[in-house]
């Protein structure tokens, strides 16, 4: 709400200011983003249940199009493209989602501790972060994958670790602002344990940047997981996976474009959708986290 309204209402208005989600929902971009993301998520989640075949069933000749019963034809081995497309989404979403969630959670913990405890704790945590930041996300992932070998948990772990320092930096700054406020000192004065102060007093007040970070990290995760799949460092054949599909079918792109176009479009739409939501959230957060109004 803008400045003058607080002057017009001497008796404090009893209505609450709309929260982050509701403010974000007012932007058209958020609505578009939610629609796009929901579409892809729906395909990925419901796909396996409605797919006409199993993902490893041979229904056509390699790169054959115009087959009866296979709308988008066959892939490089003659499996149904539509079926594999419907099966290949949830792995990507799951990997990207869990990588983003783990990374943001770890980054939040590190950020709040570093911001609140200051001193040597802050120094150790943040300098370690700096070291991690020095590795480019994708290169680090490729390095680890090629040494240890492509494993699902490793994909999640590597992406999460690469997110952590970036999230930690943002949350640390937000924490620094919050701990200047007197309600944190009030909690210290009554001797509330430090971990309780961090979870009860600080965490709820950094949720706005936290949600924005979550959206942003999710977008990056989708990209990295897809790229790893494409480079053969992600999920291994014969699993149906969008990244893998692009890799497997790129040689036949001229004769059978669907096998590449479908996963590429899906990833693009998902990324754009997630980005639009994040954008809406961050715009709403600017209005909300102005801190105290005087």
């Amino acid at each position: 709400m803008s400045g003058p309204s607080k002057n017009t209402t001497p008796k404090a208005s009893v209505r609450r200011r709309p929260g982050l989600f509701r403010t974000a929902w007012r932007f058209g971009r958020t609505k578009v983003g939610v629609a796009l993301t929901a579409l892809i998520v729906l395909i990925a989640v419901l796909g396996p249940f409605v797919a006409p075949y199993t993902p490893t069933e041979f229904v056509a000749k390699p790169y054959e199009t115009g087959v009866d019963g296979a709308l988008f034809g066959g892939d490089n081995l003659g499996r149904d493209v539509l079926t594999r497309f419907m099966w290949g989404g949830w792995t990507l979403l799951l990997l990207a989602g869990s990588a983003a969630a783990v990374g943001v959670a770890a980054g939040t913990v590190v950020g709040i501790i570093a911001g609140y405890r200051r001193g040597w704790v802050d120094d150790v945590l943040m300098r370690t972060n700096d070291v991690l930041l020095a590795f480019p996300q994708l290169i680090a992932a490729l390095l680890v994958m090629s040494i240890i070998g492509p494993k699902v948990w490793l994909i999640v772990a590597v992406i999460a670790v690469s997110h952590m320092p970036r999230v930690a930096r943002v949350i640390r700054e937000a924490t620094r602002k919050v701990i200047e406020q007197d309600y944190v000192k009030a909690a210290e004065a009554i001797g509330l344990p430090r971990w309780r102060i961090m979870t009860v007093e600080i965490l709820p007040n950094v949720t706005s940047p936290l949600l924005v970070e979550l959206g942003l990290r999710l977008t990056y995760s989708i990209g990295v997981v897809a790229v790893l799949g494409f480079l053969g460092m992600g999920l291994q054949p014969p699993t149906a996976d969008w990244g893998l599909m692009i890799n497997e079918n790129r040689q036949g792109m001229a004769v059978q474009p669907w096998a590449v176009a479908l996963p590429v479009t899906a990833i693009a739409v998902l990324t754009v959708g997630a980005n639009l939501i994040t954008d809406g959230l961050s715009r709403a957060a600017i209005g909300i986290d102005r801190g105290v109004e005087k």
Partner: protein
Amino acid sequence: MTENEHTENTDTGSAATGGAARSGEAVLVVDGLTVIGRPSDVEIISGVSITVKRGEILGLVGESGSGKTTLGLSLLAHCKRATEITGGQVRVGGQDLAGLDEKGVRRLRGRAVAYIPQSPASALNPALRLGVQLREALHDDSLSEQDVLGRVREVLREVALPDDDAFLRRYPHQLSGGQQQRVAIAMAFVGRPEVIVLDEPTTGLDVTTQAHVLETIRAMTRDYGTAGVYISHDMAVVADLADEIAVMYQGEVVERGRAAEVLSDPRHAYTRKLLLAVPLLRTSGHEEAEPEEEPLLRVSGLTAGYGRTKVLEGIDVSVSRGECVALLGESGSGKTTLSRSVAGLHHQFTGEVLFDGDRLATSSYRRTAAQRRRVQYVFQNPYEALNPRKRVREQILGPYRHLVGRPEDPDAVVAESLERAALPASYADRFPEQLSGGERQRVCIARAVATDPALLVCDEITSALDVSVQAEIVKLLHGLQEQGMALLFVTHNIALVSNIADRVAILNKGEIVEYGPVGQVMSAPEHEYTRALIADTPDFELSFPGAQERLGLAEEERAVEG
């Protein structure tokens, strides 16, 4: 309400020379001014009419949210974001500002109308030297470089600041708060404006500095023949300064008249409420409190600092049960450091702090649960002291659960502490953003008294609030004290101290210069610093009939609200 007594003003340039001679002529005429807020279209000020004569000061009084700042800004034809002037005129020296375009208005700002904001620290550009800023404020192309510099030096001398080159080369951060405000005044007067708008220019200043700044403003408006509009929520300051008073309430001028008349015979109930809210400096009639054998809190030989800087030295204070001890001092005197040391929030101190016979550790974390429960702290700024994500109920129950234990009936605990802070139990479900400043501070007090403390440390708890709200909070504290609670009341307001405290310790530059029963200190101050503080407090006396019955305040409130 207004009779358009505006006379055509032909000469707009040389106000300084002929001002005194032509006093009596209206320079600023505001007629039926209406400002609305977008997009709600609520009228922030509705149909306000005021007139100010040359060389006079109009005091514009009202509480926060009454629209006084919006009115002040619209006198410069400036609107805050999402506000708009929709009706009425602002005539300065015969020219209607509201009707001019942006370019025309800009030409008149600083020359015809000037503005002195509340906080000089944020009004001055920290990156520019004072000389540059002052020259900028003059923005008159017809003058030569030499004339401009001469004028700048002249105005600096008039506000009692040095006018040498070394001073002009300084940056704002190299000045004290009072000096910064003087520079802001100089900037406003450098273009010899017809009208000057002062938006609570002394709120952030100490009484001594405030007295000097007010004196400067008074003298400058007289000498220049400028019409001044002084915006404030403090009747005492306005009574001291203004020739005419306009009282604003919810966007309307509810009372307007000569200062003496308004003060001696207030017509509107709201005006009476504002007048009654001002704490009077009581220099006599204090009852002597009997000092206890073993005080509840005894601070002896306390020395505190930040890093290598010493802020407090050799402090001895004691607070008995059911007693209110005031720590009085200006900003930077170390009074907040002292109160925070008592609360266990400031750790760097040496010396002895005994509470109920036991030594208090420097950090609250090393104190026993009982000690933390029995010493509670109320913060200065209620806008920062409540977690915005928690309902009032949780704000109160959080400390209670931690210090007392899980309550059998949480609703009763919340309702009782809210009641002790004079708030209805229905407030428990609200979030801080749904409360006004005064209500927030009451919630802070409710949170503190929920655990049934023996000592309440109040750190300037009224300084962020309007005078009228302050009176209510003080009344509340009185009630708590009568229930047996000891108060350590930190403030810079000596009038407040004379009304609430039993004993007072006067802090100056980290040392206690005077300490004793409040009656003795107020009537026969021994230290010259105390004498200066008393002398610099604005003289204010209630002179209208019925003012003596200050206890009738509660009825007045209802009359205003009803």
